[in-house]
């Protein structure tokens, strides 16, 4: 399964959920869905914006784990 490690990266950048949602331009509710691994899909544009906001690479956020 694909795991989202958004909280790790956010902690490293010392960025709050609200701050990130402002920078990325998606709602707090949607960002929570993403952070809590409840999302079924993620748009490239969202991924792009998150990587830019957190100044990180895609693999810092997304990870494949064998279940």
């Amino acid at each position, binding site marked *: 399964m694909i795991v989202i490690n958004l909280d790790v990266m956010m902690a490293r950048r010392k960025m709050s959920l609200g701050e990130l949602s402002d920078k990325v331009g998606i709602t707090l509710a949607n960002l929570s869905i993403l952070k809590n691994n409840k999302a079924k*899909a993620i*748009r490239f544009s969202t991924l792009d914006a998150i990587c830019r906001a957190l100044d990180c690479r895609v693999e810092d956020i997304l990870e494949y784990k064998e279940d």
Partner: protein
Amino acid sequence: MLKISKNASLVISKVLTVLFFVVLICSTVILPHFVQLIAPAAVRPLGLRDGVLIMAAGYLILLFAMLADVLLFRLLSLVHRGEVFTVKAVALIRGVSWCAIAVSIVFLLVTWYYLIAIVLSFTAVLLGLCLRVVKNVVEEATAIKAENDLTV
């Protein structure tokens, strides 16, 4: 062309559902007289036991109709709250379709006394079938909506 707003249309549907329920309640009172009225049209002479059976079938049909009406009203309330494509709405539509099929079975049994009941049975089963298809469609739409809602 007469254009009715979405909200007004919803209110009209609700009012009609309530009116139909009132009609059903009145029907429970009229049913014994109605059965007496159509008694001569039966394909075989009716004894007391036959009369009771026909009455029971009539009340059963009214009961299922009431149940379907209540389910429809609850479905309309869901639409009002904007929760159309949910598991709950699918369950309600499924319930209404089962009611239609149950009514068709009762009418099929009534055919023993009144041949014409086969037409009503046919109509009811067709309605139940249509509703099942609608239920399948809404179920699929629900899955698509969930997928869409959980895309960030």
